[in-house]
């Protein structure tokens, strides 16, 4: 730094200037005390929080109050015969809506003076209004606007035609539909809550084969992912076979597994396996932080919405050039349903490859590859005749068609590249 000033010297000059100004009466004796005393007087004035607390009390009371009461919808009509139709529908609708219109009216009437009170406070220049109250006001104004709009719509509903009432009945039917969806969601939740009394790892030996077999099966995939542009996350790491393959190749990797026993086993094997949910782990991962996300026989356990969220999150969490790998039972092979898919009671539903590819492309993956794996043994397939007669040729063609439909590859693997 050039031409630096001596700050200590400047500070001394500042002090001297203030002292000289005091001595000359520019800062007369008692000035500072007078200024401080004015501020102290302002501090002693009534606490503005009392008004704010009062407002909050009113808002709380308003929110807690039960303004609902049962009321019937108007049933008069200028249309000949319309009153009878109105009465019939209104009886049903009136019971369902419990005087919603009246309630909204009362609520709005109570709310308006409260807001006006807040506005009065805002207009008082001497009053401090806390940020929270301003936000509360904004939110209340939004609610009033929404209520007013609903009231307008309801006004049309009750005063004009019975057909609009019928539409409300349709909405009630939709509610029934929502109820059914909730039932399905509860069912999905119940499935996720699968809590076997036996060792699930031992069951995996039966359902998916030995760890050694799996290690052989995925060696080529591990070779490919060793070149990932970042760490590899194995969701549903299971017994950790794939993590071990990646670790053997010197690739940074970690796994997420929902089963505590499997997590323990993986950790004992020296692997970085964490207890938790895969979608949650992706939510927590930073943008572009992963080199590959691997889900081997996982997506068939998920609900449709979980799968969608997972695909969308994966796109954000992968680094450019990163891999999303998903392997799942092939629903295009009927053999799979007879032998493998329902062997695991925690399977939710199969995922069709066409749907999966469509979803991946919609999520922004431009490059999607397929690989079909684990074809059923030929000894289980239909035997083709080996003579050259025309009949044998027809039988052989039919057998080939049946074999293709029934004995297709048991799994398919999708590799999507970001």
């Amino acid at each position, binding site marked *: 730094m050039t031409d630096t000033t001596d700050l200590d010297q400047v500070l001394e000059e500042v002090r001297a200037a203030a002292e000289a100004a005091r001595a000359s009466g520019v800062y007369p004796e008692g000035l500072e005390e007078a200024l401080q005393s004015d501020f102290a007087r302002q*501090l002693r004035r009534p606490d503005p929080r009392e008004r704010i607390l009062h407002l909050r009390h009113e808002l709380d009371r308003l929110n807690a109050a039960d303004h609902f009461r049962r009321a019937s919808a108007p049933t008069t009509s200028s249309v000949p015969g319309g009153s009878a139709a109105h009465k019939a529908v209104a009886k049903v609708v009136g019971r369902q809506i419990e005087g919603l219109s009246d309630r909204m009216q009362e609520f709005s009437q109570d709310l308006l003076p409260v807001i006006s009170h807040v506005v009065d406070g805002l207009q008082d220049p001497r009053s401090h209004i806390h940020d929270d109250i301003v936000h509360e006001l904004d939110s209340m104004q939004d609610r009033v606007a929404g209520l007013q709009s609903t009231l307008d719509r309801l006004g049309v509903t009750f005063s004009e035609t019975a057909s609009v009432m019928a539409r409300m009945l349709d909405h009630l039917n939709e509610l029934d539909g929502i109820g059914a969806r909730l039932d399905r969601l509860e069912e999905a939740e119940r499935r996720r809550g699968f809590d076997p009394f036996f060792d699930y790892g031992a069951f995996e030996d039966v359902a998916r084969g030995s760890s050694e077999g799996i290690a052989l099966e995925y060696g080529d995939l591990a070779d490919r992912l060793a070149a990932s542009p970042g760490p590899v996350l194995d969701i549903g790491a299971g017994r950790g076979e794939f993590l071990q393959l990646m670790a053997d190749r010197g690739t940074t990797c970690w796994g997420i597994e929902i089963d505590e026993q499997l997590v323990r086993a993986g950790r004992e094997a020296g692997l970085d396996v964490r207890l938790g949910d895969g979608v949650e782990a992706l939510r927590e991962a930073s943008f572009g932080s992963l080199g590959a996300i691997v889900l081997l026989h996982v997506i068939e356990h998920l609900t449709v919405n979980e799968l969608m969220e997972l695909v969308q999150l994966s796109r954000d969490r992968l680094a450019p050039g990163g891999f999303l790998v998903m392997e799942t039972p092939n629903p295009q092979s009927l053999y799979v349903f007879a032998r493998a898919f329902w062997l695991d009671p925690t399977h939710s539903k199969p995922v069709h490859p066409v749907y999966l590819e469509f979803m991946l492309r919609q999520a922004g993956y431009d490059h999607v590859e397929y690989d079909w794996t684990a074809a059923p043994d030929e000894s289980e397939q239909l035997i083709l005749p080996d003579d050259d007669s025309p009949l044998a040729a027809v039988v052989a063609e039919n057998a080939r068609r049946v074999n293709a439909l029934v004995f297709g590859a048991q799994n398919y693997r999708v590799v999507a590249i970001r």
Partner: protein
Amino acid sequence: MRISQLLVGAGPGDAVTGAALRLRDALRRIASSSIYAVHIHPALRSDVVDLHRFPLDGSPEDVVIVHVSIGEPGFVDFVANCPERVVLCYHNITPARFFEPTEPAFAARVRAGRWELRTLAAVADGAIADSRFNASDLEAIGMSGVEVAAPPLDLDRLLGTEPDAATVAELEGCSGPVVLWVGQVLPHKRPDLAVDALHLLNVNHQPDARLYLAGRYTSPVWSSALVRHVESLKLPNARVLGSVSDSQLAALYRGADALLITSEHEGFCVPVVEAFAFGLPVVARAYGAIGETAAGAAMVLPQEAGAPELCEALARVLTDDAVRVDLVSRGHERAAELTSETTLVGFLRSLARVLEPDGGRSHP
């Protein structure tokens, strides 16, 4: 390994929350890392998780960084029962005496915080303090090996923020110099003294000088008294803004001619460094870690300096080109020492030292 951070409260614009977010993003490159807090502002719901959702399957391989700046019932018991290694990140707890006359409930919380600090110190595996000043607090209760590292700052973010057009236009319309004051409206920040200094500056030196006070109305009593004090002194040149957005703050830093800090207690003082980065000369008093943070790049008056001294210092900074240019140059140099990268690397190095098998520790 999982490295979690615990806060009592998380809010936008809060320096501790900002540091925690920067740290989390860096830690996620090496471990699973999330921020948990007891009180979370709605705007931060996607970044900060409720403390009651803190995973309870932790082990001594995991680490919990506990940011300490206030007391909170139950918080210390929670930390004391964590199986993870605990590292305190101490941002200082403002002494209760500042709040007792007007904010007794808040005073009780900070007083409790001071007591809780002793328990936290007893269970922690090490500590990192924002400043030497903060470290001395921990050493006074028996901790040793306390690391000192500036909090992870992100000056680039504010520097790169598009300034609010309305604020820019307002400042450009000012005929005289603009003095900026930044801080929450709380007793120890002494915003009243800034108003008094402006009053004297208007009367004795620069009638058209203006003062903008930017910061959340954390204390309603002090906030309303401050507004009434401005009215009582008939100071149309002072504007009490309350909370400002990042773009408003960027416009204020860009458009102001000096930053005035009147605080009587600071564990670090981020606005000083922000002002340096924006090329603003800073006038302050030698309380807490202010002198340490400024590191010779600000005009730091002695603690006993009152409104007349602050007024004279401002007059000097606003009118003496040589002093102003020198302070701006020094400020730039200091800001260059506290970049996003250097503060983050410095903090992570301190964290690594604390976590070394024979590092940190320190039980009182």
